[in-house]
């Protein structure tokens, strides 16, 4: 027994053999995240992530996580290009944080902060992904079949040829693409009508780089400061086509190419605050 800082008496977490959660079958590694310890507690994220790291170190390039129930921080900083992690269940917050190359596919919903500060790689979610998805991502691709929450794609940025891409099949809430400094966000509104708006308020607030494509209606009052809105032109079609075909391939869906229903939201300036300040030292 040990006393933790909350003053509770709590038994040590390591009450089971991690090996009991790992199964090797057909050349891949299956990790059962729903195994419980002797104390009846679900496998702790620290142990789960440790098992994942060990499995990668041992050379596994295809890892299946079964029965994930809100386990946080899965695959943070994983950096093997050829690594594929398949997740069944609901991964917890910060899935694939600082991800740098691997592909993560979630057959379920993801929670908040998926792909936090992602550098490279691919996260595919066959469900919804909630708030702050793709925060500060500077590369890689996030594909969400369903809807996403508030403050998604915040401060995504591009540099030296790396660009992040985020495609949402359904809808997004307020502050989509806030502070955005590069990359592409696409909201496809596949479950709604094109007369409806699939995005919330303060869209692209403070945007100073990158683009947000929205299929559906965007009213002027929905735009945040610094954002401008234009119809999609032939110039944008190849980029949109690339994002959409990747989305179709990932989920086996067909997305209409009705460019006339899309709007493009972008920055009014790459220097939104020049002129805001008085540099005279008085």
């Amino acid at each position, binding site marked *: 027994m040990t006393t933790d*800082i909350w003053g509770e008496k709590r038994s040590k977490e390591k009450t089971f053999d991690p090996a009991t959660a790992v199964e090797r079958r057909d050349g891949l590694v299956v990790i059962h995240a729903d195994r419980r310890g002797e104390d009846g507690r679900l496998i702790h994220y620290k142990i789960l992530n440790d098992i994942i790291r060990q499995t990668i170190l041992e050379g596994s390039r295809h890892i299946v996580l079964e029965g994930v129930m809100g386990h946080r921080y899965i695959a943070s900083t994983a950096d093997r290009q050829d690594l594929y992690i398949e997740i069944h269940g609901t991964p917890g917050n910060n899935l694939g944080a600082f991800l740098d190359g691997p592909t993560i596919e979630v057959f379920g919903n993801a929670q908040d902060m998926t792909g936090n500060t992602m550098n490279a790689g691919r996260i595919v979610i066959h469900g919804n992904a909630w708030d702050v998805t793709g925060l500060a991502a500077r590369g890689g691709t996030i594909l969400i079949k369903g809807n996403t929450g508030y403050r998604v794609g915040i401060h995504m940025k591009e540099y030296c040829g790396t660009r992040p891409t985020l495609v949402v099949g359904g809808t997004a809430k307020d502050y989509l693409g806030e502070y955005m400094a590069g990359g592409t966000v696409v909201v496809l509104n596949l479950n709604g009508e094109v007369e409806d708006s699939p995005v919330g308020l303060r869209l692209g607030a403070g945007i100073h780089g990158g683009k947000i494509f929205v299929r559906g209606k965007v009213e002027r009052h929905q735009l945040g400061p610094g954002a401008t809105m234009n119809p999609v032109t032939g110039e944008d079609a190849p980029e949109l086509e690339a994002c959409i075909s990747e989305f179709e391939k990932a989920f086996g869906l067909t997305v209409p190419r009705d460019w006339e229903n899309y709007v493009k939201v972008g920055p009014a300036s790459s220097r939104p605050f020049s002129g805001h300040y008085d*540099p005279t030292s008085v």
Partner: protein
Amino acid sequence: MAQQSSSKRRMELDAPERFMLVVDHELCKKCKKCVNECSFRALEFVDGGVKPVGGCVACGRCINVCPAHCLEIRQVPSQFPAHANFNERVRRAIMSQASTGGVLLTSCGTDIGYPVMFDEMLLDAAQVTNPAIDPLREVVETTTFVGGRKGRLEVKENGRLYMEEDPAPMIAMDMPIMIGHISLGSVSYNAQKALFTAARQLNILAGSGEGGLHKDFHPFAPNVVSEIASGRFGVTGDYLKRTAAVEIKIGQGAKPGHGGHLPGEKVSALISQTRMIPLGTDALSPYPHHDIYSIEDLQQLLSVVKESTEYKVPVGVKIAAVHNIGAIASGIVRAGADFITIDGFRGGTGSTPRIIRDHVGLPIEVAISVVDQRLTKEGLRNRVTVFAGGSIRSSADMIKAIALGADAVMVCTAAMVAMGCRVCQQCHRGVCSWGIATQREELVSRLDPDVAATRVVRLFRSWNEELKEILGAMGIDSVESLVGNRDRLRYFGPNSKIAEIMGVKHVGEGWG
């Protein structure tokens, strides 16, 4: 805008000049060195002589380069009718804002003469009842350990020591000083190189700032604390794993609650690559971290960083000293931080709105004491290392900060001054004539990183020797025994209420 060259004529409603360069034309060798070195373009060579053309900021570069010693910067006497309330400072701000309509920017720490409690406290010394120690002949330990302290140490029956929990990672520094977070971007490549070199030579830590870690600086990584700020500039798995410790920056003393704003003209190719941001655009750090809206969220970012670094390095949090600092610090320790850095309101910056720098936050003396008392009361103080910064100007400030409750201090401005900075408060303009706060290559090359590093090393070595002198005089043989030892401080100022809040007795009060 201040007048920047003679081609730009003074508007009749602009404020008069603050500084004037006086040239002794008899001594002047007409080498034009001062004109060429003045990055503020306040000097011109006209009609065979050096002529001040306005815009002098008293950076002092011209004086130091003049081979004839014929220059003198004079503070222009006030040209304003005297008024104690509408003082010159107030009137200048009004005039400038009426001309530009902008939010006033500034840099360095506040120059307003708020009371400095460091200067209102006196240290104790040993007399008769406990002996003083001669630090030149006896060991006075200044090694400082950085990191979380977990669980308890138990002595078992076999006489061996056991830890209740796995020990947390620790870093040993040779002195209780950390060079604060000064990012590449706010300062030049040469300046950051000098600071990192000094940290390595001193065996102390230096902050990376939020500008990422340039690949040339990877060899310094064992002495670098990487920073995760709201812009996540340059933050990758490699950056987190490579460095000695990771700090999540929530706030900065000079601008609590404000994000960062590196203007596009400072985002050069070097900065773009290191920060991993687009070239030439404004580098904006959002005001909050958008994944942190609560202590629970902070706990998640701490946890994800610990997961990412596989629990091998200390992970801490830096906060600006604000009114509720005690409760915030308590939450941060409970969230699992291994160290807390508290930055007082007098702390420096490369750029901040003046309104925030001059009017927001808490003085560091009070903040340290409040945090130390709160954490001690809650039984948490032993779990963390507390760094304190925000205008630690001298070893005296450092010693008093430690006695108030900090484990170590974070120093930036003093290190800059050692490198040549004159605290002219123009960093945000990006034309630092000393090659420190600039990205212009012709200016950056003025700073020799080796010379600058040596000066920083000498400064902090001398501070550490002064620390030993004081510790010896107090009869304390290890700096750890001074931490939070407020009984060795006495308040000698006008406000006994503040002494009470800091938990420091008034001069004249004894032990009992």
